[in-house]
Every structure is written in structure tokens, then in C-alpha cells.
């Protein structure tokens, strides 16, 4: 099975983020890490590929930097990577991103595309569905469990109250939630070997895409309002009654 996993390099969430004051684009340092949510997608891809000696190809778009994030996913065990780095794509919205990824995935060929539900730095949460539409295949979203049997994929789709069982024929796109599997730690041997795994780099025009305009711009940015401090209930032995009262006021009990 040919499995493609979409991965994104993002600024290390442990460090403070900053935005370009003019464009409002996220400033991206030279060292970017693998988006934590993508570790789940890579793990799903690796586990499925292990069943029938399939291959896992990573597809990533964004400035290369030192490629630490992509290398981390290669170190986990992916076979190769396709990287789209094009200055013209700076600040592109979800749809442009999906177009680029779709073109790269189309070119390399696929049975299954795996993606996280949303990136930790952008949070649009629509790329997997757009990707499926552009590739002309079904989108199976918010999977908390993925099984492939022959050419049939079945997922447990996370819902607010439980899960739906969703089935489709391959090829398809699946988006996976954190917790779908336990991502492996890259091995040190894998880390050393990742250096020599093939990485193909393309620009947008290499993929036949000339219009990279994002179709959207950020008009203004404001800080999120700080959450107000909660109410403290001192327990003088009757504290639980006050809590019950509060819950009744909120009509949750």
C-alpha cells in the first residue's frame, strides 16, 4: 500500500511565538519541529504500512529551515519525503495549502492519505477535507481508530458523545485525532539514517501550480481576552452545598 502522510514543521511550541507586524504571518525560525499532532499520523501510516510492506511517503509544505521536523518523521521510519518550499507560498491559506499538497500527492500516487485533524500553529482544521475533495476521494475524518482490510478502510469517528463507524473503499483521505495510536519515539539509528533518506524538493510551479495567491489576508490581530478568575468557595464544612447551588444555577444538575 502506498501511504502518504501530511506533516508540518512548526515553531517549537515551547518557545514564545511572534507574528510579523506588517503581514501578521507567523515568524518561522530556522529550527522548526514536527507538529506534535502529526506524530499520530506518521504512526498510523507506519503501522498500516508494516502489515503489507507498504511505503510511507511524507508530504510537507513550508520553509525548509534545517528540516528538523521532517527529519524527525523520517527518523520514526517513513521511507521518503516530498517537500514543497516556495517563497511565493508564504502566508497561504488552507485552500492553497490543500491545492499544493494535492498536486504533490497526485504526482507521487497514493492508496491512502493520512493527516492530522488540524495543525498546532494554524488551527484551520479544513485541509484534510479540502484535500479529499481535490483528489476526488472520500474523506474519513476525526478517526480515533483506523483499520484497513484489503481495499476497505474502516474508522471510528470521534463524535461529541461517542463514535461513528465509517467505512469506505480506498483510495481515501483519513484525518486522525491525537490518541488514535501511541506514536513511537524515533530510534537513534533512525535519526542517524534519516540523513540519507530521499527528500524531493519542489516549488509550486514544479507541480504545475502558477496561481499561489492565498485569496485571504489577515486584517488585524488582537490578543485573546484573558479568562476571568473563577470564584473561590471557602470550605467551612458547608462548601459542598454552595457548589451544588452553583451547579443548579447553571442548570447542569
Amino acid at each position: 500500500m502506498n501511504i502518504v502522510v501530511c506533516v508540518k514543521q512548526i515553531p517549537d511550541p515551547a518557545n514564545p511565538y511572534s507574528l510579523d507586524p506588517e503581514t501578521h504571518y507567523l515568524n518561522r525560525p530556522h529550527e522548526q519541529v514536527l507538529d506534535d499532532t502529526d506524530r499520530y499520523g506518521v504512526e498510523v501510516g507506519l503501522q498500516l504500512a508494516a502489515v503489507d510492506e507498504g511505503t510511507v511517503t511524507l508530504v510537507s509544505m513550508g520553509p525548509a529551515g534545517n528540516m528538523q521536523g521532517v527529519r524527525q518523521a523520517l527518523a520514526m521510519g517513513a521511507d521518503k519525503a516530498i517537500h514543497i518550499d516556495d517563497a511565493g507560498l508564504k502566508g497561504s491559506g488552507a485552500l492553497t495549502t490543500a491545492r499544493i499538497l494535492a498536486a504533490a500527492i497526485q504526482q507521487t500516487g497514493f492508496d491512502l492519505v493520512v493527516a492530522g485533524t488540524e495543525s498546532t500553529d494554524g488551527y484551520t482544521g479544513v485541509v484534510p477535507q479540502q484535500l479529499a475533495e481535490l483528489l476526488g476521494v472520500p474523506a474519513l475524518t476525526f478517526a480515533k481508530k483506523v483499520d484497513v482490510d484489503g481495499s476497505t478502510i474502516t474508522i471510528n469517528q470521534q463524535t461529541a458523545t461517542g463514535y461513528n463507524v465509517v467505512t469506505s473503499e480506498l483510495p481515501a483521505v483519513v484525518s486522525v485525532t491525537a490518541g488514535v495510536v501511541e506514536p513511537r519515539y524515533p530510534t537513534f539509528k533512525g535519526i542517524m539514517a534519516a540523513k540519507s533518506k530521499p527528500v524531493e524538493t519542489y516549488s509550486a510551479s514544479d507541480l504545475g501550480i502558477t496561481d499561489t495567491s492565498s485569496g485571504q489576508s489577515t486584517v488585524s490581530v488582537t490578543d485573546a481576552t484573558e479568562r476571568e478568575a473563577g470564584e473561590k468557595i471557602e470550605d467551612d464544612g458547608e462548601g459542598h452545598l454552595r457548589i451544588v447551588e452553583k451547579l443548579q444555577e447553571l442548570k447542569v444538575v
Partner: protein
Amino acid sequence: MAGMDVMIPDLFELDQKLSTEETLIRDTVRDFVNDKFLPIVADHYEAGTFPMDLIAQVADMGLLGMHLEGYGCAGTSGLAYGVASRELERGDTGLRSLVSVQGSLAMFPIWKWGSEEQKQEWLPRMAAGEVIGCFGLTEPDHGSDPSSMKTTARRDGDDWIINGSKLWITNGTIAQVAIVWAQTDNGIRGFIVPTDTPGFEAREIKQKMSLRASATAALFFDDLRIPESLRLPDAIGIGAPLGCLTEARFGITFGVIGSAIACFEAARSYMGQREQFGRSLASFQLSQQKFADMLTDISNASLQSFRLAEMKAEGRATAVHVSMVKRHNVRAAIDTARTARSMLGANGISLEYPVIRHMMNLESVLTYEGTEEVHTLVLGQAVTGISAFRG
């Protein structure tokens, strides 16, 4: 607490010197320690146990013998071994000790002084964590002066008969193989001793107040018979075990920085959140002096270790360099831990915070792998040309 806009505690941006591979190794170990180890370490510390079920994962990542080439080892740089040791010890000295002993004290002598058959037989299984090793040098009556050891190995036809005992042996009770150093008619030699050999006994040392999340043992050899094929052919004299220690100490110089960082971060977050006299504890000048001292200690230790790693990579690091950095960094870390302990007030003595654990552990690190005094004398000898060790 509002931080500065410089990276603390890596004020001199030393981690920027790491290659992409070294950075990924650091992050992998850091994630593992945060996810798997920190949530359980306090309970193990209290119970006096090592989380044995983590050994397989530690091995899978490639931590065991990571800086050795071939035989199933990852073959990373020394600097990668250093930063991995730092991240492990940010978890606990016990975790770092397991990795140090396995890689530098048990695998390294086989890798360096073993025969090709010995390497093939033992190293891949040790890298995979199927065989855990320990290193028996210290004896009940001979610690800082191991060349006076009493354990003997006597030749008997094609075999060796070993008698004696070893004390304070990390991993001793969990090991499948022990590297045992013994006196022979021709001087000190090293032996690969499977721990299921008749005549071998390991007893756990109880009532430790330091390195509680680590197995420490007394080993006894009673007419233990092993074939010549288990002697390390190229390990000749006391220089061989001391060479292992130089390897392990290199990792330790980085390791203790991890302990210090854990204590520093705990104190920083605690003082930033707690108020007394209507003000943040972090706002008092006395607290700020403590932070300044801790940050300086951590920075000095890191600068020395990173430079040592460079010199090691160039083949120019000597035992004197290692002595200086081991002595300096352990002292810096223990001072940091004790200062942080005071900053947490009563909470500083609770295992709910990492500080007392690190503070107690560092007492062992001050003693093992050459006591502070012994490293002082090594430096004194390097300066004066006079050995002050014996009369």
C-alpha cells in the same frame, strides 16, 4: 513570573551547537522523560525500586551504548551521548546511571578490550537491553584506591577461579552479566561474568537515602569458575577500568547539569507563584541572588561540558580535563540543588517536587566515579607534578 527574553537556563545558547541529529536525540530523550518517566519517578523513589518496564523502551530508542560504533549500537557523537545523559538525569540520576553503567562501564570495556567473538556475543544483546550489565570495581575495603583490590582470579587449566567481593555495584541485582576486575599473578584483569554462574551472588543494598530509584548491590564470588574465553584479552592493568570511568564521567558531567536544571526550574516556578509578606518570593533580593548563583553555576558547567565534548571529538580530552569538569559540575549541581531546596521551604523536602530527590542523588554522584577529593588531587598533581595520594 515574567521571564527574560534570553533562553534560560541555556544563556550561552550552547544547544545551538547541536547538529540536527543531536537535537533530535535530545528532544526524543526529553519527550520520553517527560511522558514516561517523570510521572512515576517519585513513587519508585519512595519504594526504592527502578521502573524495570522502561528498560525495553530505553533500549528501543538506542540509548544503551549509543556512542559506540557497530554491534547494534547507534554510533552517535559524544556530544549526543552528553545531551542524552543530561535529559535522562533531568528525570533522575538513577535513570542516567542505568544508561551510563550499561554503555560506558559494561559495554565499553567489551567494545574496547574484548575479542571479536566477545563483541559479537554480548554487545548486540546489551544494546537491545536483553542483557543488562554491571561493573564491579569497588570493594568493601577499597574504594578510592582500587588498585589495592583483594578480589583474585587464579588460573586453573583453561579456567579462572574468582574469589572476593564487590560493593556499591549499580545494576548488580538486575544484571545478567558483570564486568569484574580482579588481581591475577600478572596484575589486574577484567572478566565477563554471567551472573548465573555458580558461585556468584548479588545482594541488594537496602536503606539507601540516595539513588533510591536505582538498584545497588554487593557482589560475592565464591570459587566462581569461568573459562579463559571470558577474560577481556586486551584489558591489562588498572588503566583499563580507569579508562571506562573516564568514558562514564564524560556523560556524568552532562548528566548533573540535568539535575541542576530540574532544581533551578522548580525553584523558579515555585518562587514565581508563591507570595509572602504580600509580594512574590521571586521579588526579594536574596532570592534573586540565589537565582543569579544558580544560573551562573549551570552556565559554567554547561560551558565546560560542551568544550570537553569538542576536545573529546578531536581526541584531545585527557583524564585531567575530565577530572576538572566532573569535580566542577557535580559541585555546581549540588550547590544548585541545595539552594533550590531552601527556596521551596517545607515543600523542598517533599517528593512532590523533584528537588530533594536530586539533592540526595547528587550526594552519590559527588562520591562515585572518583570522589571530589580524588579529582582535586588529580588536578593538584597535574599542576605540581607531585602525587598527594599516598605517602
